[in-house]
């Protein structure tokens, strides 16, 4: 009974006294400072009183100009950062595609590679990769104009400076600027995309220790060197101003810098590792080693397509550059044409079935191929580029698997390597001259062969060839050295058992019984 009375009194207190006191308090406070009415429609919020000025509400022209400039750079920085976050999310996409297309007994290992390459690669890029790639890039035009990234090592050939690598900004020291940090974030997630491509081609037999060393080296050295040549002010970008080859090697968002680099490393790595046990028979026939989780692979592809809306449009590094709308639509159209082309190609000409894994590859191939030209072509060209890329992905996968006899479980070489090259060459053909005035220091918009500038195609070709040769050579040396040091491939016993327990200790699917027949290859 006592308890009941106490509860009733407590309830009365809460219901009556507390609201009364807070109403009195709020009206007392409000009476002192309230100067604005509520603005539910957002009509009066944000006006001249918000402009930073010595006298609130009466800015001078300079103060007004400062605010405008500040807002312009703010839009650019916000855009670059947010699209950078989207590109980071592509890590999840790659992880899911790769794990879905490989066997369950290696799931923990494949997933760990894709997660850890983020850590290792970013560390390598922070340590010295960013400095090598962007140490000499010059003033950051859209991101506030900081010009402290001004140390580029060049050599003089044929009377011109050939920029090779930068030397400013190791561990981001000496460049503590908001513009630089924005650029760093955006560029590091691009490096991460390139770094995670080889993990797909080399999965199911790659020693985790070898991968760990690779992870740091790719972010620290392999990726940044070619990246400097194209995006850091290096010699490939100066082919235009030095040798009148168009605007130099132009690569808007990285078909060559990111995807072809990743694809070439994947090809070299998968070739050095050798095929998975049971993939090829003595009579030259090929066995299917089916992926264990097609739903995961498809969701991964959709995540990648979503992230690509950060990858391509974000590469303007400027939200104020309204070409982003064209870039985004070009990206979209190329991706769907790629998906349709690969699916119909499989359906009609190859396996007579619309293979979902090739659907995934076609979607990604379209995205890879449009990555370089997306800002420079019209949407019909984008559609055509996507169409070709889808077919190229399928035929490329067969070529790599059957002719080159390099075992690529996820088709990374065909999707990223071949289509990365196609993307750059397509730019050299289809760039229509509606964008890119002043690109790489050359006046005039970017035009391709079909719009009157054959030299642009030549510059693209030189860039693609350079990528293949140089990245191929560097990654070959790196993998060979790692192989001499710690060994690249796991033992046959480990490979048959599944890498999860011997390499990682942790099973991917603990407690789930797997069909033993799915772990050995099946053939006709």
């Amino acid at each position, binding site marked *: 009974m006592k308890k009941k009375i106490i509860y009733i009194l407590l309830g009365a207190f809460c219901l009556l006294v507390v609201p009364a006191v807070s109403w009195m308090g709020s009206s007392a406070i409000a009476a002192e400072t309230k100067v604005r009415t509520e603005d539910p429609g957002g009509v009066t919020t944000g006006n001249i009183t918000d402009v930073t000025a010595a006298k609130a509400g009466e800015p001078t022209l300079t103060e007004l100009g400062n605010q405008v400039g500040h807002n312009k750079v703010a839009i650019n920085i916000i855009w670059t950062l947010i699209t950078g976050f989207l590109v980071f999310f592509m890590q999840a996409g790659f992880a899911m595609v790769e794990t879905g297309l490989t066997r369950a007994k290696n799931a923990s290992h494949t997933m760990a590679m894709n997660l850890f390459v983020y850590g290792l690669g970013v560390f390598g890029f922070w340590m010295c990769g960013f400095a090598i790639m962007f140490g000499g890039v010059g003033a950051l035009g859209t991101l506030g104009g900081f010009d402290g990234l001004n140390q580029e090592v060049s050599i003089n050939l044929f009377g011109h400076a050939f920029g090779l690598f930068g030397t400013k900004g190791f561990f981001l020291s000496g460049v503590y600027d908001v513009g630089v940090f924005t650029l760093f974030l955006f560029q590091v997630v691009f490096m991460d995309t390139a770094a995670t491509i080889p993990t797909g081609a080399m999965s199911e037999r790659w020693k985790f220790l070898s991968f760990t060393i690779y992870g740091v080296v790719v972010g620290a050295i392999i990726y940044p060197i070619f990246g400097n040549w194209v995006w850091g002010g290096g010699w490939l970008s100066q082919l235009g101003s030095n040798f009148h080859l168009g605007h130099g090697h132009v690569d808007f968002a990285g078909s060559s810098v990111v995807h072809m680099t990743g694809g070439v490393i994947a090809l070299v790595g998968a070739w050095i590792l050798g095929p998975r046990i049971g993939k090829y028979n003595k009579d030259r026939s*090929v*066995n*299917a*080693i*089916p*992926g264990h989780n097609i739903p995961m692979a498809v969701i991964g592809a959709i995540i990648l397509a979503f992230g690509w809306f950060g990858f391509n449009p974000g590469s303007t590094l400027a939200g104020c550059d309204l070409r982003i709308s064209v870039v985004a639509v070009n990206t979209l159209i190329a991706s769907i044409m790629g998906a349709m082309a690969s699916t119909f190609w*499989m359906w009609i000409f*190859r*396996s007579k*079935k619309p*293979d979902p*894994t*090739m659907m995934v590859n076609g979607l990604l191939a379209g995205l890879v191929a449009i990555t370089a030209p997306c800002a420079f072509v019209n949407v019909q060209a984008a559609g055509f580029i996507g169409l070709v890329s889808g077919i190229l992905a*399928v035929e490329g*996968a*067969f070529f790599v*698997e059957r002719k080159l006899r390099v075992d690529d479980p996820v*088709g990374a070489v065909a999707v990223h390597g071949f289509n990365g090259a196609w993307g750059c060459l397509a730019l050299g053909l289809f760039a229509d001259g509606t964008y890119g005035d002043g690109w790489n220091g050359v006046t005039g918009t970017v035009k391709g062969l079909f719009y009157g500038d054959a030299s642009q195609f030549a510059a693209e070709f030189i860039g693609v060839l350079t990528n293949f040769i140089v990245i191929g050579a560097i990654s070959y040396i790196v993998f060979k050295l790692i192989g001499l040091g710690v060994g690249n491939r796991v033992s046959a016993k480990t490979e048959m058992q599944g890498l999860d327990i011997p390499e990682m200790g942790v099973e991917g699917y603990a407690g789930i019984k797997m069909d033993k*027949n799915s772990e050995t290859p*099946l*053939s*006709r």
Partner: protein
Amino acid sequence: MKKIEAIIRMTQFEKVKAALKEVGIDFFSYWDATGVGNEITKEERSYRGTVYDTEYIPRRVLNIVVRDINLQKTVDCLLKNAFTGEVGDGKIFVWNIDDSYRIRTGERGDSSLYIDPNR
């Protein structure tokens, strides 16, 4: 006491189970098995352009222990309901059981297999 080991198609299992219940046999274990046999498997699996055949023959194995008086009606029921007429319908094996116990009560022999219908 006899044990009936019946290897039947997956597709016939529900029918067999219902029919067995109808004749009063509703106590047995079963598991899935893969086998090698006479059935011609024509599979159409393909993965990234490589067509392959798993040569799986999936079947379900029923393990029914009955008293001697129920042996014939169980076998007849199985023969009738697991039948489809295609190659690969399966087989029935009959084993002799030396002894049987019910764990809960400790009963032995025929009474351990007897389940009172009015329970």
